[in-house]
């Protein structure tokens, strides 16, 4: 059993209206000095068996092509082996 976490974030050069709205709200609610907020997605995936070799390569490919859109987003992937 493996636990895979894929974080997907808009590329830095792309305007993130959701992040901007959150930044404004944090400030209005009293948190000073908020310089930037970006909002992304996180996928937590439980996979049976061992995730390595071809399966890991496929996981990476799907993180890049399905879970994120390379035109506007970057992804990062970490695998935690699980009990």
């Amino acid at each position, binding site marked *: 059993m493996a636990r895979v976490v894929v974080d997907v974030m808009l590329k830095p050069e*792309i305007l993130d*209206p959701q992040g901007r*709205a959150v930044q404004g709200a944090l400030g209005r609610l009293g948190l000073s000095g908020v310089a930037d907020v970006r909002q992304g997605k996180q996928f937590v995936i439980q996979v049976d068996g061992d995730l390595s070799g071809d399966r890991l390569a496929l996981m990476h490919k799907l993180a890049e092509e*399905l879970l994120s*859109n390379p*035109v*506007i987003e970057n992804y990062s992937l970490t695998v935690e082996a699980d009990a």
Partner: protein
Amino acid sequence: MSARIGVVTFPGTLDDRDAARAVRIAGGEPVELWHGDDDIKGVDAVILPGGFSYGDYLRCGAISRFAPVMNSIIDGAKGGLPVLGICNGFQILVESHLLPGALMRNESRHFICRDQKLRIENADSMWTRDYFTNQEIVVPLKNGEGNYFADPSTLDMLEGEGRVVARYLDVNPNGSARDIAGIRNERGNVVGLMPHPEHAVESLTGPTTEGLPFFTSVLTSLVSA
């Protein structure tokens, strides 16, 4: 015999009946296509209608792009098959890389439904030839993720090659780059459009009938091809 225009239904497609009705009113014969079937029944053109395919849960169009029917449509499009993607269909076309760029969340972060003024920038595609360049039309727009994005060089390329098909006038409803409402591929057979011309084909139910030429255009294109 009238042209046969395929209308694809994915799980969660909503405007398929409307697209079929528009084809019929334009004088074509709509043909139902099913997402899970790679047979596109020899149709002369394909419409990817609006809706929330797969609930739009991951990213609009991201999951549908991998449906069996898309393999045949992508192959066909590369060979010149006319393909029109409306709203969710446009999102599927960019996710499939048949058109460049991406569609992001509306700047307002709200779904928006409004009667939208557009300018037809290019009457040179298989789906816009029954308009004249710079014609102004009003059709419904309704989307939550219609904010067109592409990097500046891609935008310059689209503009330079006359591939911006339609632009928002008066109001940019979703924050689209350079007010872009629709684009086409190099060859002009594939068009992606955020607004909904299929909801503007009858005066009874639409704000205008100014969406109809999208559907007659492809019939004209097919006859003259």
